[in-house]
């Protein structure tokens, strides 16, 4: 918005501009500043204002229906002393790390595979992307029906080893949640890697072939290093996104059995909207925001100091 203020074009300001076409570039800046207004409005209305509201509510006692009262630091003390919070935090990080470990290699390999120009690869790529078109709730309901121990896939296909109590045993349910999340999100990350691989110049591979490098050596010495920033982008989306795996888990397990899949986002929802404890739920929301910010900053740093440096030097 400060750019908009400079539109008053004082002659002095104009004179201070270096060579070039000062009038024109000033105009462009002004127009660009105006163009940010809608985005800024949405950011304020849907990110900053609710965030401030949540911060205020974290110091309030409110059941979501009646009047809002003050709770001081009471909510913070009670939530931070609650073992449920640490269980939820642990599960959130566990799912985050496991999801990254499962999804990254699969999407990377599928991305490299589908980047090839052969016809059958294009056909397979279309199949891989299908889960991307389904909503999380639909995915969760479908898996729930398929995995029903009595009426599910196991009975239908006569495969007794599939007749596990998938959603009823804590460690199985957790593993299943990680699997379904991967099933849903691998296509998206495959798409990112596919794009990344297609950006790598052919000449690098041609040179490597002349030098006698095989497919595997090419992958580790050309493809992987060239995909450094793609990996960082994909990982950021995966890690920060894992904080919001709410809908899928909510429909699939509801946080159960017991508390074994009750991740932070779900814990927040259940406290707020089931138990009518909006204050403690807001405390968790604030914690969630802080973790998200910290993770995003950390992953940005991971890019290293030579971030601006080109990976195609000498090309």
């Amino acid at each position, binding site marked *: 918005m400060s750019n908009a203020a400079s539109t008053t074009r004082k002659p002095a300001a104009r004179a201070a501009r270096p060579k070039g076409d000062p009038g024109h570039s000033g105009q462009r800046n002004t127009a660009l500043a105006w163009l940010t207004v809608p985005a800024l409005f949405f950011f304020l209305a849907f990110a900053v204002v609710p965030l401030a509201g949540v911060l205020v509510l974290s110091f309030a006692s409110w059941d979501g229906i009646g009047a809002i009262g003050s709770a001081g630091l009471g909510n913070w003390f009670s939530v931070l002393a609650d073992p449920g919070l640490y269980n939820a935090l642990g599960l959130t990080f566990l799912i985050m790390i496991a999801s990254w470990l499962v999804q990254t290699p699969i999407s990377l390999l599928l991305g490299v595979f589908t980047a090839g120009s052969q016809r059958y690869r294009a056909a397979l790529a279309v199949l891989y992307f299908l889960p991307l078109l389904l909503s999380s709730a639909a995915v969760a309901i479908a898996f729930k029906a398929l995995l029903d121990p*009595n009426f599910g896939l196991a009975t239908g296909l006569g495969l007794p080893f599939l007749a596990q109590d998938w959603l009823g045993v804590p460690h199985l349910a957790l593993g299943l949640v990680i699997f379904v999340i991967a099933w849903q999100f691998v296509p998206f990350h495959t798409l990112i890697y596919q794009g990344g691989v297609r950006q790598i110049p052919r000449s690098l591979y041609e040179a490597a072939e002349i030098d006698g490098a095989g497919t595997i050596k090419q992958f580790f010495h050309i493809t992987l290093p060239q995909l450094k920033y793609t990996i960082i982008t994909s990982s950021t989306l995966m890690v920060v996104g894992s904080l919001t795996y709410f809908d899928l888990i909510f429909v699939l397990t509801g946080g159960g059995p017991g508390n074994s899949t009750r991740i932070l986002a779900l814990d927040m929802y259940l406290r707020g909207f089931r138990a009518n404890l909006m204050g403690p739920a807001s405390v968790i929301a604030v914690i969630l925001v802080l973790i998200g910010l910290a993770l995003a900053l950390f992953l940005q740093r991971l890019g290293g100091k030579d971030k601006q440096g080109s990976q195609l030097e000498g090309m």
Partner: protein
Amino acid sequence: MKQSQTSRRSFLALAALTPFAAMTATACGTSGPGSSSSGGGASMWYLSGEPNQTTMQKAVDAFTAANPDDKLAVTYFQNDAYKTKIKTAIGAGQAPTIIYGWGGGTLKTYAEANQVDDLTGWFDENPDLKDKFFPASFGAATVDGKIYALPNQYVAPIVLFYNKELFEKAGAQPPKTWDDVMSLVKTFNDMGVAPFSLGGQSRWTSMMWLEYLLDRIGGAEVFTAIFEGKPNSWMDPAVIETGTKIQELVSADGFIKGFSSIAADSNADQALLFTGKAAMMLHGSWTYGAMKKGGQNFVQDGKLGFVQFPTVAGGKGDPKNGVGNPAQYMSISSKAPDAEKETAKKFFKEGILTETVIDTYINSGSVPIVNGIEDKLNTSEDKDFLNFVYDLAKNAPNFQQSWDQALSPTAAEALLNNIDQLFLKSITPQQFAENMNATLGK
């Protein structure tokens, strides 16, 4: 010249984008389907699922046909989802005119926040209406001596259902005592049939077991003390014995394999009983109608048996005590415009529990909460079950309302969460009692 061009262009850019922004903002403001400011007449939210959905729709259609000036629109939701949705809608001022519920602790929250109208005066003006219902049905509608809801639909005690065919095959009798239960568990497991069906993922289904067991072991007073928030009332030895018995039953494979991943909303628990995969099921009497409709003639062929919950040796509870829902309830949102409130009251008086609706409930295997229906029950094709439910409800010295409805929403959520863990054996009965004791007064 250039300058004016700039501002015009940026203005145009803004103008082009503004409608989108405005549209999105307004769309967010009125997303509630039952927005009370719709002006199109009264609204009601009700549960999906047969046979009740059709019954309600017919009642509403008949009412609006007879009263063309009154508009009443119904939206249907799944049971588990509805319980959260209605609370959020009321908190956001987007409640429908008619708020459907189960009375008790949740209704108390609404009444204390002045979100529902006090109907005491209106009932005084309409004594005929008040006298029409079972007197006991008003208990869960009353907060501090004032009536905030109209009891309606039917009385729904929790009943022990069993598959007669499987019992004949096993040469067994339905359980009369807890020892019978434990020996039947062995009998049916040896036969390769699950003893009890349970939709454990819904959690309130598991709660029904605790409600009856605690009553049979410790008597009705134990939960009454909990309900009144008396200090350490959850630490009663009867609570711990109840938890121990539950975990013994789980350890003996009393419940079907995978019970904690079965949800009651899909009626899979009922399907297990009528397809012969499970021999018994503890469930609300409303499942009779659902099984009659969806159970492939299981009910019609007389294969469904039903008994009262068994007694426990040395227990203090009266074996005639019942638990369940004394009725369902409808309140009027205090935020609704007066015209909509009038429509709602007219519907309460003329549209709900009309003779046609009463007959429909009876035909679908439920006992409506109206006085003087004995003759109708006796001539029904489901008279055995209907009389069983009627007698259970009428003769019970104490009819305990479902715990998750009787308690405050905060305590109820903690209860359901701890029950889930108790059934998974991830907490001991002692821990269960301690965890619940911490929620007293919340």
